């Protein structure tokens, strides 16, 4: 039993991290109806810039703060150079633009900082919590716990921001109907910059946490691929959905790997989430929390 719980908890904690990456997608999708293919590149860029600056002798906290400011500048550049010219275009054009953006960001990040894998130490120990291990026999890493708390706090704050404030309402308004949003005086450029900044900062946090766990390297961009099944299960437009989807994917892939894996030769952790997502697509295509699609004929 303790083993089952340990696998489950480990999975849930990993799931919170998936949710965090998915959250970046949701923010942009919610406000512009666009699937931002560059989200993975932004995760990579954030972690790489922070570690790169640290290697230049900048203290870690300052490096992170500088990267955060840089993220906002990047959001402004993206709005000016890509989103504004493509404003009235169909979503597929914007999607293609984000695809291009992903390669540009990855390329530039590596050109500036090099493509060596780097270690990142956030100063959070990655050892099992002793009291928990002693009392229940379940091993949970301090790092995983802290990372989950940070991710949860971020999800909570953003959820509240979206539902309670004028700017949050403006973001949803732009997503629902841009023309109507303009007519009530919502400043579109500002909204887009805020959304891309928020998505960039979420990507930075995700990049730092994943980077500290697995090293800062190119494979960080692939974390974004895990966000796909999370989004399909949680719904593309729901912040709590990203979180719930993350938990489901995290827990189920670990449990499947341990309990079903041995029966069919193992290694199912890497593809199981996609099978699960496929099943969801058949049963509930809008995801658990997504806006229900109503088709009127």
């Amino acid at each position, binding site marked *: 039993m303790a083993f089952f719980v340990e696998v489950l908890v480990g999975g849930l904690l990993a799931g919170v991290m998936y949710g965090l990456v998915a959250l970046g997608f949701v923010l942009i999708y919610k406000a512009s109806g666009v699937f931002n293919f560059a989200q993975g590149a932004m995760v990579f860029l954030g972690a790489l810039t922070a570690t790169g600056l640290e290697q230049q002798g900048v203290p870690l906290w300052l490096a992170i703060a500088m990267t955060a400011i840089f993220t906002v500048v990047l959001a402004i550049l993206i709005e000016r150079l890509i989103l504004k010219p493509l404003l009235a275009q169909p979503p597929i054009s914007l999607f293609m633009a984000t695809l291009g953006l992903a390669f540009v960001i990855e390329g530039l990040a590596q050109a500036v900082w090099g493509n060596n894998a780097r270690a990142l130490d956030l100063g959070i120990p990655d050892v099992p919590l002793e009291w928990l291990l002693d009392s229940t026999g379940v091993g949970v890493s301090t790092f995983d716990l802290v990372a989950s708390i940070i991710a949860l706090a971020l999800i909570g704050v953003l959820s*509240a921001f979206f539902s309670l*404030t004028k700017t949050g*309402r403006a973001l949803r*308004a732009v997503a*629902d109907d841009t023309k109507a949003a303009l007519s009530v005086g919502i400043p*579109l450029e500002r909204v887009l910059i805020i959304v891309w900044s928020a998505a960039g900062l979420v990507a930075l946090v995700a990049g730092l946490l994943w980077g500290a766990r697995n090293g800062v390297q190119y494979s960080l961009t692939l974390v974004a691929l895990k966000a796909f099944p999370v989004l399909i299960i949680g719904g593309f437009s729901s912040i709590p959905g990203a979180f719930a989807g993350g938990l489901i994917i995290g827990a189920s892939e670990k449990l499947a790997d341990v309990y079903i894996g041995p029966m069919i030769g193992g290694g199912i952790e890497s593809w199981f989430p996609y099978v699960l997502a496929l099943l969801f697509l058949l049963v509930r295509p809008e995801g658990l929390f997504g806006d229900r699609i109503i088709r009127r004929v």
Partner: protein
Amino acid sequence: MQNAIPPLLQLRGISLRFGGVAALANISFDVQEHEVRAIIGPNGAGKSSMLNVINGIYCPQEGEIVFNGEKRTRMSTRMAAAAGFARTFQNIALFQGMTVLENVVAGRNLKFKASLLEQAVWFGRARREEAAQREKAEEVIEFMELERYRKKVVSQLPYGLQKRVELARALAAEPRILLLDEPMAGMNAEEKREMCRFILNSNRRDGTTIILIEHDMSVVMDISDRIVVLDYGRKIADGQPKCVRDNDEVIRAYLGRSERVG
């Protein structure tokens, strides 16, 4: 002349072209404060284009707009909103994923003053302001008799109610000029009567100046003070309902050019 008081809005020689197609050709008319001004005309006459010019969505190639004594040639939709223009759309443009209340609060967007930082930390002014604006929005909801639906997501409401929510959102901005693009399109007689009542009540109670496009002639004749008639992007008549109704060119435009009207 009734122009002792300068008009609130004047359009002078407005021409708008899309490529080679002239949507509006040298159109001039004015709107007095507190007036209900209708723009009518057959399909494709340029009515919606006219509204979009006033609203700043389209920028006319020629002509100028004088609003409240100030001349302008170019204005963004956002600036128009800030200047006191609010509008509804021909095809409902609501925030479909939001509740009725949220839509109406969104209509008051420009009344919010708290900075992004204040909102982010949900502190002091941001919080008080949200409560105050919600209260104002509730008043509009009451005025529009939407209390029963305030927590309903608009995509789940029937068409007629969505039209009413859209008017509520526009009224929530406390506009100086309200632009209504076919507010009664697709409604039954009962719904039209109600809509007329709301439009006139707003005009009488708050003195809102209204420019509306509408196809239902009996409605237009009933509620308008003055009517502009467009046909193929040209202005063919302008005046009080009874003058417009008896105008030969208007009758011809509506019944077809070859027909004789007896």
